[in-house]
């Protein structure tokens, strides 16, 4: 499930939804740091070098930012080429506003650990809920074990 940290104050100046129109022209300046949100929930921050009509992106000096709660961690990734269909939104980062954020940066290992814990707890909650519902005769589709074609797997 897609989760955008609502407290993220890394303010996106102009939000361009994947099927953008004239806001696209805001990208006349292609040398600012950009934030990209992908469909699988990942957040990438990097210098947008190139873009095309499908919103395929070339990002340089990319950093994948993982948010857990109020903390975040960066994983440097290098150069990314993102296929346009996976882009949810793309926006420019206001460098001034980036510095005053309430989020706290931690090192990568910590944040990964936190993320793992978070995922685990979520999964467990989901499982128990599912079980409870099953006992009552309701079967709710579970998003995590359902793949993109709506096929639900039994684990």
């Amino acid at each position, binding site marked *: 499930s897609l989760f955008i940290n609502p407290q993220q104050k890394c303010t996106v100046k102009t939000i361009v939804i994947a099927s953008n129109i004239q806001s696209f022209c805001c990208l006349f300046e292609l040398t600012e740091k950009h934030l990209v949100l992908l469909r699988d929930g990942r957040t990438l921050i990097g*210098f947008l070098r190139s873009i095309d009509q499908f919103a395929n992106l070339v990002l340089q000096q990319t950093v994948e930012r993982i948010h857990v709660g109020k903390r975040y961690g960066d994983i440097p990734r290098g150069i990314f080429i993102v296929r346009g269909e996976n882009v949810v939104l793309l926006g420019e980062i206001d460098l001034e506003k980036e510095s005053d954020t309430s989020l706290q940066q931690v090192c990568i290992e910590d944040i990964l650990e936190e993320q793992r814990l978070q995922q685990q707890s979520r999964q467990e909650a989901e499982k128990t809920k599912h079980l409870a519902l099953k006992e009552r005769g309701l079967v709710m589709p579970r998003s995590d074990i359902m793949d993109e074609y709506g096929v639900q797997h039994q684990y």
Partner: protein
Amino acid sequence: MIPEAEPKHCLWRRGTRSGLLVRLGMRAHRPPLPNDDWQEEHKRLAELEEQKNDGLGSLGLGTLGMGGGNASTVHLPPPASRVPHPSSLPPPHHSLSSMPPPGLEERGGGDLAESLAMLILGADPAIASVGGPAGPDDRSTGLPPPPSIPQQHHNPSQLPPHHQLTPSGLSPGPPHLSLLSYQQHQHLLRRGAAPMQQMNSHNIWENNLGFGPVSITPGLITQMEDSPLMSIIKEVGLPNRPPPMTSEDGRDLSERAPPPRSSSPVIGSPPVRAVPIGTPPKQPMSHAMNHHHHHQQIHHPTAVHVRAPVHHQHRYPPSFPERISPNTLLNIANSPLCRPPFPAGVGPVLSQIQRAQMLNSQVAGFPRGCQGPPLLPGGGGFRPFFGQPPPHRMGPHPGGPPPPNHNHVPCPIIRHNTTHLHPQHRRMLTQRMQSRGGERGGRVGDWRSRDPYSNLMSQREKEWVAKIQMMQLQSTDPYLDDYYYQNYFEKLEKRQERDRDGVRKEHTTKLITPQVAKLEHTYRPVQFAGSLGKLTVSSVNNPRKMIDTVVTSRTDDEEKREKQVWNKRRQILYTVEKMYSLLLEVQDFEKRFMQTPEEQREALLEQHKTHTQQLYSSLKEKEWDDRVSDEQCLLIMSVRKGKRLISRLIPFLPPLQAATIVMGIARNLPALAKKDKQDQVLCWLVEPIAVVISSLSSASLTDLLQELQGSEGQLSRVLQNKFGVTLLYLILSEGERMQSSNPTCQLMDDNRWTELVFSVTRELLNVPSSSLSPPLFTPPNLLSLFSRYVDRQRLELLQEKLQISALSR
């Protein structure tokens, strides 16, 4: 008339014994020859040839290959590097004749062959025109006339007195060009189109055999001495030459446009431009670059079209205008803007060669004062493997003078095409650019020059991509096109106005999109020839249903009940949706009002009023105008979206109607609160209701309070709900405000208000703290209100309970 002398090989190729028809016939029955066998074939043919050598007459080529008149017939192929390797040739579909059947060898001399050839050529349009379409294309300009090319083996005197076989009906030139193989062209190139040449015996036979449609080709096939591949190539016939690209020197193959797509209007696929629509714009190469690449131009003289890609796109809509490539639009709309001030612009993806040359030319320096390719001041850590990418390009940042380089030519500011942007946006961009330019002029090793990748996309490309996006906008309503964009800039403007207190106001928002003429394309369904009736072909223009889905409904009783519930809900949602669309129109009324001219404003106003009326009437009671239908209200408010709707609607209603709605809400509050348990969104209503309340008269206020208290026990339930408490507080605070501000207000005229407040306080005191829900906010003047009505003791109790502090918040 067929000239007397014709070189031997022509005759041989055409063959006395193996005229075209014969050869075709032979080939038809023979199995295709695998590529490896050609050597054996070669040997066999050589033997055969020797046997035949005496009896052959040779023909002079005559006028066919000679003279400037046939400049058109000789064409220069692409550079040698592109000659296909024989193994890459498609397997010969004509079988190479292993040997002409013995019977043929007995055939008579040239007459028979000649007549046969003529017959074939004349009769068979296929052969005659087989290279027809390709032929004219094969001409390239600037071709030197054949005789000027040094001909090593050209030996006119060698024209043997053979009689000719050239049929008079032979149409020389173009049709045969395409029939020439690449290899033959190469020969032409290297050694000139020597029509008359010495051919050794081997070649004769190679030419002869398996050369089907090309058999009649006049002696444009020149030296074949070193053509072991010739037989195979000739066997295959000629591949179609691609339509000649405008010669871009040293062009990078990877940049070449893909071969033309098949566009079959029969099938209904959309037509195709010469350049596929997805192709990014190619940068015109500078003259400077051309010179550098000169050595790469192998054989052609410089037929350089610097702006060739632009030329044939300048024709505005060709026959099928439904797809206009952004290149077209770019070029037409922005022609003056497109050309960079000086042709230093290089395509973004430079080929390795080009980059290498750029690097090389750093030493030489560029002519015309273009900025040289970058010598990064610090060298940097940037060593992209193509060499240093060029931040020297003018493109997007035409600010101050270029980074520290030898050539200092002040760059004019390119005004990109920003007409389609919001003026605010435009201003921001220009500001940004100017500031950047200023910076650049100042500092040497600053961020931009340190960032060699910053201009990977040229300005033109960015515009191109933006244009593609803009092409989707077919409407003239900027709000329809990109609502959030417009709103963002409006908010920005408002903010700036607030900060600056500026007077000037731009009524903006007229989006200027590239006006693509909306042509009515009449769809003509595909028709097949020879079919009975009209067949349905599903294509992109008329999709057809392929699968029949059958809906089976279950008739269970419980299902019915469930369905009813769902139906009702759906009904509610439907109503809400309809109201929403009306509401949106009402909300946008103001903006539209500003944009419409004077005459239409009246009509718009009328429309607006109707909408509002409609909205209200959907809520109110059937007969009574001043009362909101409880049922309806409940229904709508039972849905989350409905609550939102009401909260948005209230500001737009006239005060009286708004008041009635608020009354209705107050009246039904417990029920609403119950339904809201899940959503908890009643609080959305607080703000608009607050506005309404503040405009209420005292009488209505009292009424409202009464409604809120309503029946027995309602108040306690009200108090349990956050929204209820807030509402109550709002009412009370308003009353207090009225009283304190205006001593002569009518609030105290009858006792209702006092009584109501008394009961409220009683209830407040009685209700247990736990069930008292905290409000959204506590108005500050509650304390003074209560102090009027209750004694000190109770006041303190109230204070504590409600956590009303004496200090005003």
